[in-house]
């Protein structure tokens, strides 16, 4: 069947097939008769069409009701400049590019992508799912020659394109670490043991090792502590606030090139506390592993008095009052 594409806001004139201008006809839209006020002779005039006017238009001869013409009108827009992104999350195997349109066109679009490396044109194989994505295998590694990726989107009302230029190292961004686990350490009220795994999409962590960035904070505070780890997939936090629930995330980056991954899924954990929450005598060992440690600064208007926070020896309750800046290992006796 016939399809007709028109821009939003356009004026559309439909002829009833080969019928003369002065023939008596009836037009319907999706089976509903169209008022004669929209007709100019046997022509149907639709002014300033909008999306709601998409549908099947039919024209019937006046008395016999023979169908003389039928078309499917699709109202849409030409494509705006597409948004294109390319990334290598499985270096050194290859990279993928994905794209989308910033606003819908409401009519079918086709995409064509070209990848050029120096003088060589490479084939970007389209993924079955998601549809707006294709992937390329690296033919060369360690090249200084940039890649140029051009995406063209075309529909019945127009076309548009965008180009990305980048070098091999710049687009390397691993997926976040997987299976992040945080556990309390028995008999250690200030420790949390965190472990994770390399993202499964990273093909060769032995030759292309990842480094990691860990961030953690108690739920009650906004400021994160950060630790950068150049190897290993585990870390023990040793300066956790006793009894406080923590939120922990990890990110990964190739040791040498590219950018940091997104943060992993957040995990929650609370350091070990003795049950019931009595105060115990325990020598407090002050340790820090943080690269940047913020001193504990409570919001000025709150008073936090937590009998469960065991610091120092003896039966002590620690009470942080407004206005007091406590270093992480300060003790206040009441």
């Amino acid at each position, binding site marked *: 069947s016939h399809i007709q594409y028109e821009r939003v806001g356009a004026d559309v004139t439909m002829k009833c097939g080969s019928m003369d201008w002065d023939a008596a006809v009836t037009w319907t839209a999706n089976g509903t008769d169209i008022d004669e006020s929209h007709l100019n002779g046997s022509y149907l005039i639709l002014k300033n069409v909008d999306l709601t006017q998409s549908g099947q238009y039919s024209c019937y001869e006046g008395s016999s009701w023979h169908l003389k013409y039928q078309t499917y009108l699709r109202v849409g827009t030409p494509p705006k400049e597409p948004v294109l992104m390319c990334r290598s999350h499985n270096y*050194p195997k290859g990279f993928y590019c994905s794209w989308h349109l910033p606003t819908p066109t409401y009519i079918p679009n086709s995409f064509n992508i070209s990848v050029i490396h120096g003088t060589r044109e490479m084939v970007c194989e389209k993924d079955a799912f998601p549809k707006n994505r294709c992937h390329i295998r690296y*033919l*060369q*590694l*360690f*090249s*200084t*020659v*940039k890649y140029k990726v051009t995406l063209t989107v075309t529909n019945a009302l127009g076309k548009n394109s965008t180009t990305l230029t980048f070098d091999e*190292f710049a687009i390397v961004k691993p997926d976040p670490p997987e299976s992040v686990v945080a556990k309390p350490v028995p008999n250690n009220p200030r420790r949390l043991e965190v472990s994770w795994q390399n993202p499964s999409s990273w093909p060769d962590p*032995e*030759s*292309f*090792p990842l480094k990691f960035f860990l961030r953690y904070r108690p739920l009650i505070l906004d400021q994160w502590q950060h630790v950068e780890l150049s190897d290993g997939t585990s870390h023990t936090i040793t300066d956790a606030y006793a009894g406080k629930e923590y939120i922990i995330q990890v990110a990964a980056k190739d*040791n*040498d*090139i590219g950018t940091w991954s997104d943060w992993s899924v957040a995990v929650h954990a609370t350091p070990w506390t003795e049950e019931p929450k009595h105060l115990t005598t325990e020598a407090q060992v002050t340790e820090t592993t943080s690269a940047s440690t913020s001193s504990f600064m409570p919001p000025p208007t709150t008073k936090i008095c937590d009998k469960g926070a065991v610091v120092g020896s003896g039966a002590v309750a620690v009470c942080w009052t407004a206005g007091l800046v406590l270093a992480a290992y300060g003790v206040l006796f009441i």
Partner: protein
Amino acid sequence: SPSAALRRRDLCSRGIRLAGKMRSDVVDLLDTYVERQGLDASASVSAVEGVPAAAVERWDEQTGTQRLLENLAAYRAFRVLLAQMLEEQREQLGEADAALGRALAGVLLQVSAFAYHLEELLRLESRGPPSEEGAGPPPASHLGLFERKLRGLGVLRELAQWAVRSARDLRQLTKPSTGSSSAPSLAESP
């Protein structure tokens, strides 16, 4: 022999660290060079004669020996090229830019040290390192001043790529050969 295996592993891990430091210093040197030579950092430089390109196809299929030989050839060439650049820089700017000269000299030293590591690794194989050929990269005396500056940019960029590649190459060498890999370990290479 076990001592040779230990020495190999030691040379590799030191080489990997050296490559990492070298890359970091070359990246800093690139910034300094671009600024002092009045160049545009995004200027594209076509392949420069005599500069070994780091780009390689089927990198993962290379044997241990191939990796060492290609690396060694590259760093020997860079040693000559950097010495030329240092000479030119002294002639051109004299003492006016001691900082650039020092940075160049520092990288040249690391390049020499890395070449030595590679020679030692090749010595652990029965074949030993190839002798240095008399003809290195040709001097750039026929080029004008601006062309020489661009050439220098090309040299440093390619060296930065090599420093990344070399760390990867040495890590491949330290991987135990599992038999399923197509790249035999050093012990198996002829």
